[in-house]
């Protein structure tokens, strides 16, 4: 993957130069919950500073304070050593500070180019200069290795493509400080490479970068310095050189992290009757043909590049989008087709990759979200006691950290939203579980927890499909990996054949013949 980049690391800038942007003893609370206290941090021109921490540690909040999206309760923001008041994002942008949000902020009805230039349209006279905006958009996206058409409505892009558009938006005009909040959580390695190349050239141009990620390998590779937060407080700020992944994890979690992946159970016997058998599934425009079978107690991975059609395949199977399947057998029963409800009845659970748009009701309480699929009832009425108990269980089982108990889903940190969604899917007790990007944005400690959870689920005889863009995850967790490319299943890898190289080769088609 991005290994070639390591050697390109530019020397860290001189430490004595005035930091371009600095946080000075910042504090912030939501209501009575103090989410940040006394956090200081600084980043210099040409420096990439990674900010690490568990889910809910306060990373996103800190970045919002630094970019005018939120106002600090204590402390101040310094630009070039001078205190500045960033009353709103526009003001911050005028000073050259831009934040790429963890949650995607794009208007689905507008096209890529329209979103990119929203609020700063190019004009020719009083009119829009559409040609130039399209050309620039195409150019910028291409430089990021993203090949979406500028006139495509953003609502029709995949999550990853949307993320690239978001990043492109931030880079549209020259900046002094670029803050990226988990930019790679939804990206596949291919795009991560393109993004890193762009970040390096920004560094070379003297831009100060703040970078949040839970992918510690990436951080080790690209960061100049590392700042770690825990429970809203600064743990440490130090140069990245010499900091290994394990050390970073220890700093974040506060204890030693031994293994990420649980030991793999023996793969289920091939003879076992399949939990799910799909013959020639087609999703118009996205999946040309896919056939596979899934055995009980098996963890089956789906790998591929963005746009390979993995999400669409499973959404089609579950009846969330139009699809044709020649044959669909669930636990020995042949079904004509599935709808979300019949899938639920057939014991298939599906976790979407789009938590903001499709996963959670952001303005509803946590328990409502948790039990939305099948609310607990007694005598036809909601059973508040069981709901509360289930929420309590989910809170501990999935380590969901909410500032307050009556918090709304939208007030959780990104990673905690992901955990809530996972808990929600699990509550239906699926015998076949399909998880699209299970650990997107989840910290390393919780990741291990989730992997153990998935492994235990499979060990109990349930079948699990993991769609993931993290190859480590596929290899470490799955018994078998199917690779998709251009809407087809192109390879099936098992045992020792499951390597990053093999997945990349099949996913891109590059060097396939040679391999």
């Amino acid at each position, binding site marked *: 993957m991005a290994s070639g980049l390591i050697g390109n690391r530019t020397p860290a800038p001189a430490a004595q130069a005035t930091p371009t942007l600095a946080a000075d003893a910042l504090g912030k609370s939501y209501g009575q919950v103090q989410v940040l206290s006394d956090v200081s941090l600084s980043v210099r021109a040409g420096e990439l500073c990674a900010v690490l921490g568990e889910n809910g540690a306060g990373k996103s909040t800190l970045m919002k304070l630094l970019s005018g999206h939120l106002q600090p309760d204590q402390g101040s923001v310094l630009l070039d050593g001078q205190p500045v008041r960033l009353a709103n994002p526009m003001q911050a942008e005028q000073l050259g500070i831009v934040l790429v949000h963890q949650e995607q902020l794009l208007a689905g009805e507008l096209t890529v180019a329209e979103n990119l230039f929203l609020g700063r349209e190019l004009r020719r006279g009083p009119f829009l200069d559409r040609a130039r905006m399209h050309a620039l958009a195409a150019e910028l996206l291409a430089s990021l290795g993203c090949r979406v058409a500028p006139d495509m409505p953003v609502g029709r892009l995949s999550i990853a493509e949307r993320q690239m558009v978001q990043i492109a938006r931030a880079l549209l005009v020259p900046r002094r400080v670029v803050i990226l909040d988990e930019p790679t959580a939804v990206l596949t390695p291919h795009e991560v490479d393109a993004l890193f190349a762009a970040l390096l050239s920004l560094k070379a141009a003297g831009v100060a970068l703040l970078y949040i990620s839970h992918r510690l390998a990436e951080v080790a590779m690209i960061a100049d310095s590392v700042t770690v937060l825990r429970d809203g407080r600064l743990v440490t700020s130090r140069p990245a050189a010499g900091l290994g992944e394990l050390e970073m994890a220890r700093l974040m979690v506060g204890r030693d992290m031994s293994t990420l992946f649980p030991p793999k159970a023996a793969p289920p016997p091939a003879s076992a009757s399949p939990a799910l058998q799909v013959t020639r599934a087609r999703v118009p425009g996205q999946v040309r043909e896919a056939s596979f079978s899934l055995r009980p107690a098996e963890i089956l991975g789906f790998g591929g590049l963005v746009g390979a059609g993995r999400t669409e395949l499973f959404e089609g199977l579950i009846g969330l989008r139009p699809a044709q399947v020649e044959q669909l057998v669930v636990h020995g029963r042949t079904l004509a087709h599935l709808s979300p409800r019949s899938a*639920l009845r057939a014991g298939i659970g599906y976790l979407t990759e789009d938590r903001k748009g499709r996963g959670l009701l952001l303005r509803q309480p946590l328990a409502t979200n948790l039990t939305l699929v099948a609310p607990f009832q007694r005598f036809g009425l909601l059973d508040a006691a069981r709901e509360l108990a289930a929420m309590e269980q989910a809170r501990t089982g999935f380590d969901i950290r909410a500032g*307050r108990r009556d918090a709304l889903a939208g007030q959780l940190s990104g990673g905690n939203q992901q955990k809530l969604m996972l808990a929600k899917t699990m509550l239906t007790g699926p015998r076949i579980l399909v998880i699209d990007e299970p650990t997107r944005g989840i910290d390393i400690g919780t990741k291990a927890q989730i992997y153990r959870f998935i492994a235990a689920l499979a060990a109990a005889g349930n079948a699990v499909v993991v769609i993931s863009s993290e190859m480590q995850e596929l290899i470490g967790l799955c018994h078998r990996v199917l690779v998709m490319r251009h809407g087809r299943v192109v390879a099936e890898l098992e045992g020792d054949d499951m390597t990053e190289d093999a997945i990349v080769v099949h996913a891109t088609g590059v060097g396939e013949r040679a391999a």
Partner: protein
Amino acid sequence: MSNAAARAARPRRIDPASLAPFAALAVLVLVGTLLNARFLAPDNIANVVTRASFIAVIGIGATFVIAAGGLDLSVGSMSAFIGGSAILLSNASAGHGLGTALAVGGLVAIGGGALCGLANGLVITVGRLEAFIVTLGSMGIFRALTTYLAQGGSLSLTPDALQDLVRPVYFGSVLGMPVPVLVFALLGGVAWVVLNRTPFGRHVVAIGANEEVARYSSVAIGRVRTLTYVIQGGCVGIATILYVPRLSSVTPTSGLLWELQAITAVVIGGTSLRGGNGRIWGTIAGALVLESVANIMVLSNLVSEYLIGAVQGAIIIVAMLVQRSLRRN
């Protein structure tokens, strides 16, 4: 996180925003009393509250529809249509005894309302059309059908004995409470439970909050949404049962503009027109606000009869502004 634990222990508080419509109502009562002391006379209060029952009952149904992100513009003409039908069929069955006629009328009203609602709901969900257009269309249809039934005139309950029999449904009272008030209070209670304490109610709010999320959560969107329109229809039926006894007749203009009044009551009550929340008691307060404003206009001598509409409009906007400012604090 002992902090969090302590907070969790604290009992669930009442959202101050949900009190806003009641505050608006209280202010109105105060203003009304200042303008004319007779406003508070028991008779007048009883009149106003009883009159508010139609919009309150219809508004309860509208709260479901709107909480689910829908809209129903047809309720007023639906009421006229099912009222007219109920009268015709009651009259026709009066030969079999007044009791039968009564039963027929009641069944036609509620059943007819539910069916009309079902039709609206199915066209909207199966045809995947904007609720605005569909119910605007059915508004025209119901209104025209009523005119057709009445042949342009009015439809009255006959014989007079039937009129006398049903009159207490509007004019009667039980334990000092006018019957319509009891009805909407009871219905409000049931509706509150359904909306806030059942899985169905939760799904209603979910599809209003984010239909995609609901779909991905296996909520039967079409069925839930259709049911909200059926509930709306049933409520219109109940409102019609309260309405017909008042004047014992229906004309092609019966129920005119009730749709706008019902929606206004819902919005004043704190339910967002974009869906995703629903406040039954707020809606009832909203209906009382509307009726009180009208009453105060007639009781006071401040404005020319030409300008009453202007003052009413202004009061409603001001009430909403006050409510909004309460919410901000």
